[in-house]
């Protein structure tokens, strides 16, 4: 059975910080199955982007260092590739889209030129063919009047259209894996719904695996089949989406879900009720707790939690990093 498109294990990344080094992610791993969407969730700074950027060798080498880990894509380990080898894999086998398409598009070239460039990087086609293919990609991502829009510059497009262009570029060479880091966070909800629908549709027709990085639990519930929850650089829970939302095992995941304002509160006369919160704040990477990283804020903590960091343990089809997981 080799349904696994990408398998990440033991990823640890450190950053230079005030004379020393801090670990932004530690021992992170997951398997991305062909044709599935895996959600990577957690709050700001928990290490989602560091994880996804390291898969493509996009971390800033001046400050960041991959300490250990393996990211297997078929025969190759993405974390061991040279910059030259990586540039061949990037786009062809693994592609990425980001939150703010404007910063990833070059403002001085037309979108057609940029998509064409992405194609010609990996395929030996003429400019004319590349342009024709760019137009067909634009129509595939449902940009109206693609023959005209192919000559448009990024600033002439709305945020939603620019994200479609980014998707077109990412899909130019039909990658096996698409990494999408907060792809709809900057968009309005009606546009977000369209982009998410477009991604699912393309996924179905091309069979690619999607790693969807987001802080939005609603988006994850809508599109992911399995979810990885991170806290302070660690994976704390890994589970199928239904199981996770129905009954989170990790106290942090449970706290996160409870703090979402409930839908339908106005109908039940429950608006403005006090929302359950997670007390305190996320620890700084420079002073992580010695035991469980969530211990100082955890309503379930017991003495052992402050002493000993829990390992990630399997419970059937899911994994949880907690000494006393919720029943």
């Amino acid at each position: 059975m080799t349904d696994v498109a990408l398998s990440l294990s033991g990823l640890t990344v450190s950053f230079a910080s005030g004379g020393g080094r801090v670990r932004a992610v530690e021992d992170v791993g997951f398997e991305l199955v062909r044709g599935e969407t895996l959600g990577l969730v957690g709050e700001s700074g928990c290490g989602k982007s560091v994880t996804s950027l390291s898969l493509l060798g996009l971390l800033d080498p001046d400050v960041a260092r991959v300490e250990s880990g393996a990211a297997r894509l078929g025969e190759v380990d993405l974390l061991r590739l040279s910059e030259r080898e990586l540039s061949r894999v990037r786009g062809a086998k693994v592609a990425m889209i980001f939150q703010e398409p404007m910063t990833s598009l070059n403002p001085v070239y037309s979108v057609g030129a940029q998509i064409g460039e992405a194609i010609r990087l990996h395929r030996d086609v003429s400019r004319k063919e590349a342009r024709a293919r760019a137009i067909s990609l634009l129509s595939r991502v449902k940009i109206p009047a693609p023959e005209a829009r192919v000559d448009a510059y990024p600033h002439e497009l709305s945020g939603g259209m620019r994200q479609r262009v980014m998707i077109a570029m990412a899909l130019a060479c039909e990658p096996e894996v698409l990494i999408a880091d907060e792809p709809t966070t900057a968009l309005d909800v009606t546009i977000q719904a369209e982009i998410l629908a477009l991604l699912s549709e393309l996924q179905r027709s091309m069979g690619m695996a999607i790693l969807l990085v987001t802080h939005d639990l609603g988006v994850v519930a809508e599109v992911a089949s399995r979810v990885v929850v991170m806290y302070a650089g660690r994976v704390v829970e890994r589970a199928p989406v239904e199981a996770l939302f129905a009954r989170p095992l990790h106290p942090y995941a449970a706290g996160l879900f409870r703090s979402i304002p409930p839908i339908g509160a106005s109908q039940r006369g429950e608006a403005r009720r006090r929302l359950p919160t997670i007390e305190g704040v996320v620890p700084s990477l420079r002073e992580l707790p010695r035991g469980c990283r969530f211990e100082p804020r955890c309503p379930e903590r017991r003495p052992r939690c402050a002493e000993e960091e829990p390992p990630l343990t399997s419970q059937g089809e899911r994994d949880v990093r907690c000494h006393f997981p919720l029943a």
Partner: protein
Amino acid sequence: MTPLLVATGLSVHFPVSTGLLSRGGRVVRAVDDVSLSVDAGETLAIVGESGCGKSTLGRAVLRLVEPTSGLVRFDGVDVTRLDQAALRKLRRRMQMVFQDPYSSLDPRMTVREIVGEGLVIHRLARGPALDARVGDLLARVGLPRDAMSRRPHAFSGGQRQRIGIARALAVSPDLIVCDEPTSALDVSVQAQVLNLLVELQAELGLAYLFISHDLKVVEHLAHRVAVMYLGRVVERAPAASIFARRRHPYTEALLSAAPVPDPGARRARLAIAGEPPSPLSPPSGCAFHPRCPRAVPGRCDVEAPALTDEPHAVACFFPD
């Protein structure tokens, strides 16, 4: 009881320069003929997507931007006609909390200066009394008193938003315009700030004009909701009634597009085609007609529907 805040036929039009030949007098109708009211102690939420004019509306109410036409009354006083001195005095009672907790606080000022600024401007406290008051305000929003001597960069996003709320509270306002105060925050931090806003309202009888695109937050907080599209209010009703029955097709689309944090609830959406039109060239008739599944040619593209009367007001020829 007369409402605390009443806006009648409020419009804000911005002139646009269209390059060399910009004498045509073209304008963007950012806010177009909006009427609303907010009672003391009440939350009116303004919802809509980016560019629909909700922030401009919030600013126009405080006269942080000048309305082009229309009337704003605050506690019986016509705000639109006040001179600068009178306006400054009235601002003591109308405050604002902004979306971005990073750019809305001056990084060079200490928290004491930021929170105490209004007290100094309005000569409400000085010296030790000022410090005591700032300390109380910080404690009230859940920050340590010794936060006073630090500068904004020493705080997280959620803490900065608390500083922004303390600053608004300092002068004991009756109304706070909150422009997306939690949308830059993580959900667990958002919950803390929402709880704080609810508590402060119950305690101090504050009214909020709460601007947001997040419908979960709006349903949690709002007593009444106004939905805006392209500068206009298209639906306005008590929260319980709008969340039970969305009458305007745009409200329906907005609610059905919002992702629900429940994998069991994945559902068919009411898809609306395309993107919001540019406010520079609004469509004829009903501004929503090009995207509307209910639009009837010959009617919706010709005539603009008026907002019906309360309690569940809607601007649509074919409301649900």
